[in-house]
Structures are given as structure tokens and as C-alpha cells.
């Protein structure tokens, strides 16, 4: 009896509540995997390391110092190490973001608000550049505009026109900005399209009745209403561009053009770890600043622009009249050039025996199906025979599968806690910590894990070089998304559904297994597919953590590109692109059929 009362007491119930136990465990794990690595990164930069003796005679390993920060920010090296790359990062980031927003916003308007034909199939084509790995676009650009001045074979441009392209077209600010914009405009497109879809056309009709012209309506009504979405899209896109590593590296490094992200990589390659970490921290700060600015702007204005009143919502499409077909053709051409042409170029290029000679006799399947030939590509066999690559392909699939499954399940559990224990401040904290990885530019996140797991720490062995570490970082990197997916799914499950099971006497484990998990499954499985595709094309995140035994397709492709084995690299990137596209198609199709099902269920 005594015992029974004690187990029934509120305190014991609180402590024994499986959800609270999970909450504490997850808090501990996330603290260890998200916050600690950041602290570790910061600590590393203000401590003398073992390798610092060759940099400074004063180095006492283990002592605190500002040496690395001073070296980066105020030394003769600073110009090359920090300021020039910083300017490059900002310029390419801003230019590409502006272009992405203008293009993405314009397309969003055409698709959502106008009566342009062919929307159904244009939409997936327009999102292609975001689906394929970013550096596929960089490789395609190189295929066309490669300049022999830097070395190597001429590109398509020179072959056709007979003169080499100006160097500013081949490498540096211009190509990096353009290709970044090409990769990210679908992202801006999706954000703006979401906002445009919420505009009640009665607002516009009101202006039309008062005699305003179409341009005037666009300028005075439509644009101001979607302005907050634009601002948010700007910041999010900008935040993504500055963390990009592979793309600026391929189109900048040959001419010593660096961004902060590529500088992190370059410094690590030179063994200047602490300098690299200082740069990584600066990159994180830039990202934080951007998010903070967006919250400040959008947060203050969100209420003012709330457009859905719930009553009498109508969305009418704007008739383009005579412009209908010209606009269709421009959009379709654009979609072809940015979405499909790069893939064709990569495919064609991977068939050239000698890179840069664009005639039919030069075509070969060697880089796909050929056996090792010492005369070609340093003896590397074609991708479909190459044991290296088959191993990497297997690794890639394993990594994407495990990361997606773990991230989705953990995301669902976190989401459950966040939704059901919303009054608990610890649950709120869990939510916030799970979101933090979103703020880390991916290459900086990789740097954090490099410092954290390079050596054993307590009971945790040195995970550097293990497959586990790749899964770990991929999972944590996907968490902000999977928690969001989970929250949406759990919120839709009425509390009473669970209480009914509780009254029937079902334990928490049973309720989660029998009620929550099945009901959340369709949303979570979709999220899992998104993560699968996302992890598969990820490069910047894991490039610093890859060792030969844990290589994945993207890093092998990147290494080939670095070594100038462009055909092999293109072939690999093309494979990844095809897999991700297939994944997206499945998602798109599944999403459509799911919508239909939902509608049937609701009626």
C-alpha cells in the first residue's frame, strides 16, 4: 500500500512519465550534438594547438590565446584570408540572391496568378536545378566556359566560337553568382509562390474597380502584400548561398578566387585548422545575423500583412491576353536552359574520350562502362565498373537511408514532445535546440564536428573517419526539417484521440505505437523521402569529414573534379542527379495521390 502511494505521487509520476524521460534524454543528446560542438569550435580557436608551434614561437599547447583571431582579422594574412573572401562571399551572395528572387518571384507570379499554359509540367521542370546537386550546375558551366588559360582543355564556347571566353565569364564573381542563382531560384520560387497563393484576389479586384492599371495593381497591391515573404526568402536564400562550398570552389579556386566557405576548406587542407575554424565561426555569425534581421523585419510586419481572413477567399487568375504564349515560350525556354540543358551537357561531356573535343568521333562509353586503361584518366575504370564508385554508391544509399529514417523518427518524437508538452519550458528548449542546426552553414557545421569528434571524449570514441559520424551529422542537419514535418503531423492528431486510448488504459508506448505513429506516418514518410534525397546530394556538410573508407558519390565526384577527371566527375554527378530526380518524382506523385486520398476522406 505504502509503495503504491509512493508510485502514484505526482513527483514520481513526473519522473516516471516516459515522455519526460525521453525529453531529458533527447535534451542531453541534442546538447551534446548541437551546442557542445559549437563551444568546442570556439574553444579550439582561442587555444594553442599542437600544430601551432610552426606558426608562432610563443605557442604553448593548451593555453588560451587570441593569436588565431588576430591572425585572421588583423595580420598581413587577413586581406587574403578574411577580407577578400568576405567581400567575395557578400557580393556573390547578394547578386545571386537578388537574381534568384527576381527570377523566382516572376515565375511564381506566372505560375500561381496568371493563366499561363503548361503550368502542370513546367513546375517540376522549374524546380529541377534545386533538386540536382549544386555542383552539377558548376560542372555544366565549366563544360561550356572552361578557359584554357587556367589549364586543361577548351570548353564548348571556345570550340564553337573559336575564341576563348573572357576570364571573368569562366571564373570568379560572375559565374559563381549566376550558377548560385540558377541553383537557388527554385527555392525563392517556392517561398514566394506560397505567399502569392494566399492573396485574396478581391483585394486586386477592388483596385481594378477603382480604375487602376494592371501594372499599378502589381506594384501597389500585390507586391507590398508579398513583401514580407520576399524579405524572408531573401534572407533564407542568402543564408544558403554563403554556406555553399563546392560550387564556388570549382568556379573560383582555379583563379584563387575564394569565399569564406572555400577558405575554410583551403585552410584545413593546409593544416591551419584554427584559422579555418575562426572563419567557420564568422560564417555562422553571418548566418545568425541574417536570420535575426529577417525575424526582426518579418516579425514586425507579419500581423500587418495577414491576408487570409477566412471568409470569402477567392483566387482569380490574371489573364495575360496576347502575352500568354510569348510568356509561356520564354518560361519554357528558361526552364529548359537551367533545368535540362546542364544535365544534357554533363551527359554529353561524360561521353567525350578527350575532354573538349566536340565531335562525334570523340564519343566513347569508356567513362561509364570501360575497363581500366592506363592511357585514359590515370587508369580509372568507367563508373559502372569502378569498385571505388560502387562502394561509394553503396555508402551513399546507406547514409541517406539511415539518416533519413533516424532523422524522421527522432523528429517525430521531438515533435510529439514539443506539441504535447507545450507548457513545459524544457520542451520549448528542445524545440529551439533542434532548430539550431538550421542556422549553421553546412561547411561550418562540418568543421564543428571535425573538432568535436577528432579525438575520443569521455565514453565516446574518436568518430572521425567512421560512417557513424556521417550519419550523425546528416541526422542532426536534417532535424530542423524533420521536427517541423513532425510538428505538422502531430498537431493534426487531435489530443482526444490519444486521451481515448489513455482512458482505455493503454500505456504511453502503446499509444505512440498504435495511435500517434500510424496517424503521423504519411507525413513522416514524405519527410523521410525528402531527407533521403537531401542527404544524398549533400556535399558541403560532409566534405570535411570524409575519409577514403567512408566516401560517398558526391565526394568521389568532387575529388574527380578536383583532379581534372571531368568525365568521371560528370558521370557521377549525373547519377546522383538522376537518383534525386527520381526521388522527387516519387514524392511529387505520392504527394498528389495523397492529396486526392485526403480529399476523399474528408468529403
Amino acid at each position, binding site marked *: 500500500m505504502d509503495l503504491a502511494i509512493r508510485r502514484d505521487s505526482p513527483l514520481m*509520476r513526473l519522473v516516471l512519465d516516459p515522455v519526460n524521460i525521453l525529453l531529458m534524454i533527447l535534451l542531453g543528446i541534442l546538447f551534446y550534438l548541437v551546442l557542445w560542438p559549437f563551444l568546442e569550435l570556439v574553444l579550439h580557436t582561442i587555444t594553442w594547438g599542437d600544430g601551432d608551434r610552426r606558426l608562432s614561437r610563443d605557442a604553448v599547447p593548451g593555453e588560451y590565446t587570441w593569436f588565431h583571431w588576430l591572425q585572421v582579422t588583423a595580420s598581413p594574412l587577413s586581406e587574403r584570408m578574411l577580407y577578400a573572401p568576405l567581400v567575395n562571399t557578400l557580393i556573390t551572395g547578394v547578386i545571386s540572391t537578388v537574381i534568384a528572387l527576381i527570377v523566382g518571384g516572376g515565375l511564381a507570379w506566372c505560375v500561381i496568378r496568371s493563366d499561363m499554359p503548361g503550368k502542370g509540367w513546367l513546375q517540376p521542370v522549374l524546380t529541377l536545378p534545386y533538386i540536382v546537386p549544386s555542383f552539377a550546375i558548376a560542372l555544366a558551366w565549366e563544360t561550356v566556359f572552361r578557359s584554357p588559360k587556367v589549364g586543361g582543355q577548351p570548353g564548348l564556347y571556345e570550340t564553337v566560337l573559336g575564341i576563348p571566353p573572357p576570364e571573368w565569364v569562366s571564373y570568379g564573381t560572375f559565374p559563381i553568382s549566376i550558377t548560385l542563382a540558377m541553383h537557388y531560384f527554385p527555392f525563392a520560387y517556392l517561398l514566394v509562390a506560397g505567399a502569392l497563393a494566399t492573396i485574396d484576389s478581391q483585394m486586386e479586384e477592388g483596385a481594378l474597380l477603382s480604375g487602376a492599371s494592371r501594372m499599378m495593381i502589381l506594384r501597389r497591391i500585390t507586391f507590398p502584400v508579398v513583401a514580407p515573404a520576399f524579405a524572408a526568402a531573401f534572407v533564407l536564400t542568402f543564408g544558403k548561398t554563403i554556406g555553399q562550398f563546392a560550387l564556388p570552389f570549382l568556379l573560383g579556386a582555379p583563379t584563387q578566387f575564394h569565399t569564406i566557405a572555400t577558405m575554410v576548406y583551403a585552410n584545413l587542407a593546409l593544416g591551419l585548422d584554427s584559422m579555418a575554424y575562426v572563419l567557420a565561426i564568422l560564417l555562422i555569425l553571418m548566418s545568425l545575423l541574417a536570420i535575426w534581421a529577417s525575424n526582426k523585419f518579418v516579425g514586425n510586419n507579419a500581423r500587418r500583412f495577414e491576408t487570409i481572413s477566412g471568409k470569402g477567399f477567392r483566387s482569380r487568375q490574371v489573364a495575360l491576353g496576347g502575352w500568354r504564349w510569348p510568356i509561356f515560350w520564354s518560361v519554357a525556354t528558361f526552364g529548359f536552359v537551367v533545368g535540362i540543358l546542364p544535365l544534357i551537357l554533363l551527359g554529353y561531356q561524360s561521353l567525350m574520350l578527350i575532354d573538349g573535343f566536340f565531335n562525334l568521333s570523340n564519343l566513347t562509353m569508356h567513362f561509364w562502362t570501360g575497363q581500366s586503361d592506363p592511357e585514359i584518366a590515370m587508369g580509372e575504370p568507367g563508373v559502372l565498373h569502378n569498385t571505388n564508385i560502387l562502394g561509394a554508391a553503396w555508402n551513399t544509399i546507406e547514409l541517406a537511408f539511415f539518416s533519413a529514417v533516424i532523422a524522421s523518427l527522432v523528429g517525430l518524437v521531438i515533435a510529439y514532445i514539443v506539441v504535447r508538452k507545450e507548457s513545459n519550458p524544457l520542451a520549448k528548449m528542445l524545440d529551439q535546440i533542434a532548430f539550431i542546426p538550421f542556422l549553421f552553414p553546412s561547411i561550418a557545421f562540418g568543421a564543428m564536428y571535425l573538432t568535436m569528434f577528432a579525438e575520443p571524449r569521455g565514453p565516446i570514441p574518436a568518430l572521425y573517419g567512421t560512417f557513424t559520424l556521417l550519419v550523425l551529422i546528416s541526422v542532426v542537419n536534417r532535424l530542423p526539417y524533420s521536427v517541423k514535418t513532425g510538428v505538422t503531423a502531430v498537431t493534426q492528431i487531435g489530443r482526444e484521440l490519444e486521451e481515448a486510448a*489513455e*482512458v482505455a488504459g493503454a500505456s504511453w508506448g502503446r499509444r505512440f505505437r498504435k495511435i500517434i505513429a500510424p496517424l503521423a506516418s504519411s507525413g513522416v514518410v514524405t519527410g523521410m523521402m525528402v531527407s533521403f534525397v537531401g542527404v544524398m546530394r549533400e556535399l558541403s556538410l560532409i566534405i570535411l569529414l570524409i575519409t577514403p573508407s567512408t566516401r560517398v558519390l558526391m565526394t568521389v565526384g568532387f575529388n574527380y573534379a578536383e583532379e581534372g577527371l571531368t568525365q568521371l566527375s560528370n558521370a557521377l554527378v549525373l547519377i546522383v542527379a538522376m537518383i534525386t530526380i527520381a526521388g522527387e518524382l516519387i514524392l511529387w506523385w505520392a504527394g498528389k495521390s495523397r492529396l486526392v486520398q485526403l480529399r476523399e476522406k474528408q468529403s
Partner: protein
Amino acid sequence: MASIEIENLTKRYGATTALDNVSLKIESGEFLVLLGPSGCGKTTLLRCLAGLETPDEGEIYMDGELVFSSKLNRIVPPGKRNLGMVFQSYALWPHMTVRNNVKFGLDVLNLSESDSKDRLDQVLKDLGMGDLQNRYPSELSGGQQQRVALARLLATKPPVFLMDEPLSNLDARLRMDMRVELKKFQASTGSTTVYVTHDQTEAMTMSTRVVVMRDGRIQQVSPPSQLYKRPENTFVADFIGMPRINLIKANRSDGKNRLYSNGDIDIDIGWDEAPSSIVVGARPEDLKISKEELKGSQAYEVSSVLPNGPETIIQLTRGGTILLARIGHEIDLHEGEKVTVQFDQKALNVYDAKSGALLGPPIDTNGTN
């Protein structure tokens, strides 16, 4: 079958007090309705009984067993309280068939396969769900979903039923039918039922006793007929009854013990011991309307006539005072007509003007007239 005892239950949400020192004894087999406006604490009380909310203070006994005590730090979890609950939304699990919805509670009990199957078949048959057992909840009508919720409740044979506005999602006609069905259902099982609603018709028609709540406190606990005839304070008087009761604030006229006036109208309450300031409660049907001048009655103008099928509600004006009266078809009235009004002295309730509490008994409390 089980009795329920609630002692000094208090539940706070931050600064607001949802339940304020509530005590209540529910007899075994009773159909008790918790009635009150939204936010009065009725649902909180039900959820405390279920164990879905944890009160801050007080005790709850079910069938003599202590299931919650703040002093002894004892909380028996919902699943161990031996009760069944019907939720406002029914809370049917959309991913399970009707049969599996009902089966869930039996699975938790770890019954033998054959026992479970027999009981399941019986319950589904009793509620006429046999043909629909392989459907999903989304494929059922509102009334059928309601029945699945009842089947789920019945399957585990709990001695206590808790129902949280189970009829509020049905349309008016279906609601009427389900009221009858629910009442039969409860009577046949004999389970103690606690039923939450904000619909007074539902409360009056189904309950053995009604608990009226307001701001987390119990206002009155009575059988329905008494609740209507003898509301214990002005809040209950005003809350119960459609159209609402006439509450007339009046002062004793000089030198006349039983005669009260609010300046416009005079009422003889037929009772000598009332204080000088009172509120007179008169139900619309307690006003006798006549076209002829009667002795001791005052003249009113008919300001509005609202026919409503079997009865007609009329609005009467005298000076600044407006009264509602309910009349049958025996007189035909039109707006602007002059009528005289007599109050049915035996039916009047007299309340203290300050506290709103019911004062002495001028009427026959048990009388059904």
C-alpha cells in the same frame, strides 16, 4: 456500479481558477449532468474525474476507493480508474476500422482471444454496428460515429461513464433521437454516468440530477424539475429556461408588507417576511394575460409578438420595464394592444437583491402544480 465522491476539489491554470473548492456526491447508477456556460469548469471537472487533468487540491473517491488525493499525493492514472469516456469529437481512431476501434480497449485488458471476440460481436450487435464493423470512421455518418463511440465505451463494461458533450456535433433532429437512445442505453447498463453539456434541454431531459456550475463553483444540484421551478439563485434562474425568466428588481412599497414595486410595476409576492430590497423571479408562463381589466392587475402594452408553434412569446412594456410572457392559442394578441397582467403568486421566487440567493419559501416546493 459505482458511486463517486468529490471533496474540495480545486484546479488552477496559472492565475485562473477552473475549479474552486468543488464537493459533490454522485450516487451509484445516477445520470448526473454538469451544466453551465462555457468556461464554467464543467469539462475540467469531468477531466479530473477521468484522470486526464490533475487537480491542485482535494480528493476523489470512486466506488469507495481513493483515486486522487492531493494530501496523500495519490494519483491513479486514467486507465486504472475503471471508467469509459465519450469525447466531444468522439475521438475515433481514423486509421482503425469500427471493429478495431472497439477492440482496442479489450486488447489493453489482455482478454483471451475468444472472450474478446464474443464481447466484441455482442457489443457491435447491440448497437446495430454489425454490418458496418469493417468500415473506417470517415465512412460513417455522424450518428453512426456516435454509436461507435458508445460501443467503444460499452466494450470494456466500465461501471462509470464520462461523456463530454457527446451530442454537440450532431444536427438538431439527430440530437433528439440520440437523447432518447442515450437515456435508454444508460438505463439498461445501470452505469453511473457523468455527462457534460451546455445545452439545458439536454440536461433537463436526460438527467436524474443536474449540477449547474459557474466560474468553477457549483451553483445548484437538483433534479431537473426542481431546477426549473426553484432555482436557488438569480444566476441559475436566468440560465435555465427559454425564453428566460423575468427578474424584476423591486423595493417594498411604503407600509405594505407584501407589495413591492420597481417604479413601473407593482407585485404582490404573497409573503410577509421578505426584506425591503428583493429580486422577483417570474417565469414567462407565470404571467396571466388578459384583455379585460382585472382587479389588482396593471395595464401593459404588447410591444412584440413572437409566435413559435404551440406557444407564443409576447413582450410586454410598462414604463421602462419589459417582461416576457408565454401564452397559448386561447388569446390572439397584436402589437400595440393593451393587456393586463397577473402574477401567479404561488410560482414566484424571491431573491435577495444583494446576494442573489433564494429567500424564504412562499411556494409549495414539491408541488408539480
